[in-house]
C-alpha cells in the first residue's frame, strides 16, 4: 500500500513539474518577437524576429552584397537588410525567423535568415519541378 502511495506521490510531483515548466517557459522564454512587438518596445538589442516576406519586396544589391525585403505580421511591417543568404525555400509570402537587431531608420539588420516551412506536404506531380530559388546569390540580381 505504501508503494502505491509513493507511486501516486511521484505522479503528482511529475504533474506539478509539467505545469511549472509550462508556465515558467511560456512567460520567460520567447523564441522570437513579431514586428508589432518589436516596434512597440523600441528595443535595439539583439533579438529574433518572425514575419512573412511581403510579396514583391525582395531585392538583392549586388554592389553591397546585401539582401533586402520587408516582413509583416499582418498589421505591422518592417524593412530588413541581410548579409546572409537564405535557403532555396526563401520566397514571397514565406515565414522567416531573423536573428539580428533594429538599426537606424527602423530597418532590421539580420545576420541570419532562417526559413520556416509549413506542416503541409503535397506530392510533386509528374513533370512538375520544385520551384527554383528566388535568391541564389548575394552577388547577382533577382530574376
Amino acid at each position, binding site marked *: 500500500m505504501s*508503494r*502505491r502511495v*509513493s*507511486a501516486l506521490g*511521484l*505522479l503528482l*510531483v*511529475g*504533474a506539478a*513539474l*509539467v505545469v511549472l*515548466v*509550462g508556465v515558467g*517557459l*511560456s512567460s520567460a*522564454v*520567447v*523564441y*522570437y518577437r513579431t514586428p508589432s512587438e518589436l516596434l512597440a518596445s523600441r528595443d535595439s538589442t539583439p533579438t529574433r524576429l*518572425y514575419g512573412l516576406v511581403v510579396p514583391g519586396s525582395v531585392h538583392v544589391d549586388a554592389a553591397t552584397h546585401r539582401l533586402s525585403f520587408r516582413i509583416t505580421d499582418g498589421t505591422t511591417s518592417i524593412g530588413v537588410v541581410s548579409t*546572409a543568404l*537564405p*535557403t532555396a*525555400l526563401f520566397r514571397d509570402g514565406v515565414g522567416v*525567423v531573423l536573428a539580428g537587431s533594429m538599426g537606424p531608420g527602423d530597418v532590421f539588420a539580420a545576420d*541570419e*535568415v*532562417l*526559413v*520556416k*516551412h*509549413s*506542416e*503541409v*506536404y*503535397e*506530392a*510533386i*506531380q509528374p513533370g*512538375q519541378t*520544385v*520551384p527554383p530559388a528566388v535568391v541564389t546569390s548575394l552577388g547577382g540580381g533577382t530574376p
Partner: protein
Amino acid sequence: MIRGGWFRAHSGMMVAGAVAVVLVTGLMLVPADASQGDVQRLMYVHVPAAWVGYLAFLVVFLASVGYLWRRTARLDHLAAACAEVGVLFTAVAIASGSIWGKATWGKWWDWDPRLTTTAIMLLAYAAYLLLRQSIADRRRRARLAAVFGVLAFVNVPVVHFSVLWWRSLHQPPTILRPGDPTIDHLLLAQLIASVAVFSLAFVWLVRERVRLERIREAVADV
C-alpha cells in the same frame, strides 16, 4: 528446441527486411514534396524515429510505475531496455532533423522550444542509463531508476506540445494535430508504413534486450 519456431528464429531478419523496404519506398519510390523536393523524404526517418523515442519513454514510465508497485525484475529490465532504444532513436531523430533543418531552415541547430526540449529529453534518458550503470546493487538500482524513469517522463509531452504552446522554428504537427492530417494520401501512407515498421523494430530490439538482460543476470547468479 527453438520456441516459437521458424518465425522467432528469423524475426530479426524479417524486421531488418521490413525496414529496408520502407526506406527504399520512402527514399526512392514515393513522390517528393512539391515545395521542398527530395529533402522532405527525411521525414520517413525523422518522424518514425521521434515517434519510437516517445513510445519507448512512455513504456519506461509505465514499467517504472509498475516496478514501484509490484517490484518485479522483469519490469525493471523492460524499462532499461526501452530507455536504451529510446535514446538511440531520439538521437536518430535529432541527427535526421538537423540535416533537414540545414537544408530547409538554413541551420543545423537553433535553440527553439522543440529542439531545446528534445535535447533535454535525450540528456534525461542518457542520465537514466548512467544512473543504472553507477549502482551495483540490483534492487537499489531498480528502485532508483524507476523513480527517475517516472520523473523524466514529465518532459516528454512537453516536447510534443512545445510547437503548439510556444513560438518555434519547428513547424507544428502534421498528423498528431487537431483536425485532419495536412499531407497527401500517398505521402501519408508512406509515413504510416514507416512509423509501423520502426515500431516493429522497437518491439524487436526491446524484446531481444530484455532477453539478454535476463540471461546476463542468470549468468551472474551462477
